[in-house]
């Protein structure tokens, strides 16, 4: 049997998901011998879009798509990959839910361009030149740029078979996911590749796991206020940790070093809208309703990684 073919594409991402695959280190060497990398742009393999476009439909076994869909180029390659890949995986929280860069949907493209290219203090742009989709240089050389659009998660553009959360996915989780793909032990199509437990269930600060009763948060604190007690649940201390609704495949890495979970792992199974379920979980952990007013900027806190997957976020007052 020939080796399974793998494609990896970095769309509107930072390259962190590529790094998490590189972090497999020795395991990657084993994986590389059983996999044939058909396309990995732009970070690892030197393949061009036209090479990918020339491949027959369905010729790639597994496609990993990292980053959100932010411009016409991403959208085009997403469609090409969907055609070429038998299984397409939204790899990392950006592809799965829109990611931190999904927060651009709070603003219009015009507002963003105006801030980035005109309004900022350090910008010197007297002619107010903005990026153009196409431009003719010297009257004969046509230059093009992909057109910006609202941030989308991958499944708003093409159907997706599986989702992997994390920003980036922890390498032990990647190893499990890759193993599941290679051995064919995959969950039903359309689901997340996850162990299905929340961060709290693997967090050693969880009072329930220590046999202690849960208590309400009496204050709301920002991360820079005071030093958290390393043995007490961050939520109980008032640091708004989204562990209760986030997949714990990371092994509770952030709370273990006293950093509250921000929800990059994606929603635990059964949750459609991460931000709203987080509102529900956090609000019921507070001691009284006045504390609600002390939470600064709920949108950026609860939808930090998932705004494009929110229904209410689809219609923003601009």
């Amino acid at each position, binding site marked *: 049997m020939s080796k399974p073919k793998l494609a990896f594409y970095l769309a509107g991402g930072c390259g962190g998901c590529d790094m998490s695959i590189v972090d497999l280190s020795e395991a990657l060497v084993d994986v590389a011998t059983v996999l044939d990398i058909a396309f990995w742009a732009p970070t690892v393999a030197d393949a061009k879009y036209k090479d990918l476009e020339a491949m027959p439909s369905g010729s790639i076994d597994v496609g990993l798509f990292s980053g959100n869909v932010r411009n016409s180029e991403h959208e085009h390659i997403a469609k090409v990959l969907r055609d070429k890949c038998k299984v397409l995986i939204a790899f990392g929280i950006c592809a799965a839910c829109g990611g931190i860069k999904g927060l651009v949907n709070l603003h219009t493209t015009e507002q963003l361009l105006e801030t980035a290219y005109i309004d900022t203090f350090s910008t010197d742009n007297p002619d107010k030149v903005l990026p153009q989709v196409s431009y003719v240089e010297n009257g004969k050389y046509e230059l093009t740029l992909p057109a910006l659009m609202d941030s989308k998660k991958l499944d708003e553009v093409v159907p997706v078979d599986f989702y992997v959360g994390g920003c980036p996915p922890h390498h032990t989780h990647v190893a499990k996911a890759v193993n599941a793909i290679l051995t064919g032990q995959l969950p039903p199509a359309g689901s997340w590749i996850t162990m299905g437990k929340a961060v709290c269930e693997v967090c050693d600060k969880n009072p329930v796991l220590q046999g202690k009763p849960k208590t309400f948060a009496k204050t709301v604190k920002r991360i820079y206020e005071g030093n958290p007690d390393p043995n007490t649940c961050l939520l109980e201390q008032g640091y708004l940790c989204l562990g209760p609704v986030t997949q714990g495949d990371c092994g509770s890495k952030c709370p273990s070093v006293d950093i509250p979970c921000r929800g990059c792992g994606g929603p635990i199974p059964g949750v459609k809208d991460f931000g709203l379920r987080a*509102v529900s979980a956090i609000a*019921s952990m507070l001691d009284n*309703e006045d504390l*609600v007013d002390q939470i600064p900027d*709920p949108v950026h806190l*609860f939808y930090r990684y998932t705004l494009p997957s929110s229904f*209410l976020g689809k*219609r923003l007052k*601009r």
Partner: protein
Amino acid sequence: MAWEPRIIVIACQWCTYQGADLAGSLRYSYPPTIHIVRVPCSGRVEPEFIAEAFRRGADGIFIGGCHFGDCHYKEGNYKAIRRFKLFKRLATDLGVDPERIQLEWISGSEGKRFSEAMTEFDAKIRELGPNPFKGGA
């Protein structure tokens, strides 16, 4: 056909739902635009329910629960108000008119209050117009 509001009332079975029942027994009228969904407790109401109601075209959502101290499950309504307040802040930031969602405590004996609250809320939603997710303002 002229637009008629569709209002979803999520009512706690121990108080507001009983209040609605009493309003009927006492022949207090309230607008036919409201559609009551019975829940075990106002603390059962997830913010996702409200978003889902908007998604399916509700123009306004009213949540009715027990007065403080009256909750059948002791603290469900305290949870409800904390969730509701936080959801309202989040939804406002996302561009939803906060006037479209309302939380009120209506006990089983307040049939009159139920009919008044429904009439007021219906009037308010008529003023606000159709659900923004259906193309309204």
